[in-house]
């Protein structure tokens, strides 16, 4: 059973003029950590697959074919839109501002 102390509102140290930046940068660092954890795991996975003779590294590292790029395009566009849509400030639900 976990005995970890609960997350509570202790006095927060802030360093920027707008404390929003303190918190937002915390999100950035948490994401950066996740990115590195994923990257590390993917590298390990590729190495293990290659050692097992399952993965052709040259095929993985090579430039993708036009067909593969076309296949990726819709997925990438959806990813990009979801990432950027917040910048437009649009709302889907009606209500007070």
């Amino acid at each position, binding site marked *: *059973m976990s005995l*970890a102390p609960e997350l509570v509102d202790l006095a927060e140290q802030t360093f*920027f003029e707008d404390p929003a930046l303190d918190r937002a940068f915390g999100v950035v*660092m948490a994401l950066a*950590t996740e990115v*590195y*954890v994923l990257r590390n795991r993917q590298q390990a996975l590729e190495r293990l697959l290659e050692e097992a003779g399952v993965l052709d590294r040259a095929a993985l590292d090579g430039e993708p074919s036009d067909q593969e790029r076309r296949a990726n395009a819709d997925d990438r566009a959806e990813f990009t839109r979801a990432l950027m849509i917040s910048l437009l400030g649009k709302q889907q639900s009606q209500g007070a501002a």
Partner: protein
Amino acid sequence: MDDRSFIAAQDFILDVKRFWTTEIYPALKADYENRTASFESVPDTSEEVEALIGSTTLYRFYAWLERHLQRLKYSGRYGLYPYHDGKRRELMASVAGIEIAADRLTLNPDLPIPEYYRKVDIHQHPGGIWRDEIAGFVYERGARSTTPLMGKAHKDLHQRFTSFVANQGTTPSHILDMGCGFGKSTRPFYETFKEAIVDAIDLSAPCLKVGAHEAGYCTKSTVRYRQMDALTTDYDDNTFDLVTSTMLIHELPPAEINQLFQEATRVLAPGGRMAHLDFHHVPNAFARFIHDGHARRNNEPFMSSWADIDPVALMAEKGLINIEIIPFQEADDVDPLNNPFWRFPWTIVYGEKAPA
């Protein structure tokens, strides 16, 4: 949490800390030196330095990273605390029954835990280094990467300190290590002075268990871990010929520091030696500004008040002689007087009790 993810995240956080140490800190120092290059006299207080660079974007990021890299290291998603929390059962099984070896470990569940110790979770260690049964394991793991540039050689600094003591005089026969934590400072002493009896005391039972466990498999020397307050030990007067501590003093409020030196002197035999390794030598206002900021950001509430204390006067007041305050070189490639990269201001505080 799987082990690979934990290691990857901790390595990443340490790499960011290394960048902070070797790139951001030097840039901050250069910015300060540029701003003061035309001054007739450089600032001589931490407050003056803060007025000059405390609001710069660079300093704000420097400060943010110092605070939050430590938070991520301990209590982020891949932090030391959640990782060890997930391994609680096996960790506790590894030290189960260790109290039975009474010659190795003596705990005192009734020991009063001082308020200054309970009030702040030092080093941003959730629950402090004493409250949770796994705290010793968490602290031990965390201490491996306290000094980013030392990498796996972090333990070397403890050996260097022990070597300093070994070179200062005769071989001690009875050693007291005050505030020994999980025994990182104790081990070089019992490995160097194999014939000595070593008593290692600390407030934290979880840390003492880790120390006793390690000593149980790595030495045949007489080393005893005891749960005790270093300010009020139960040892007789004149018991030890060497009293030492490592990174203890800066955790104490001023009145308790006075009490610590009083107690250390009391239990030290005439002719005995006292050597403490701590953070103290901050030679200029910029170093003090950096030091005070670190204290705030790393939950070290008494680090700055310790820096204000004159250890020579304090030790002289206790009747000690041959007092020396020595900037400590914790690694070969470090200049303790003017290092280009961030480092702790390691300092040896040394004195002797006059022969009878």
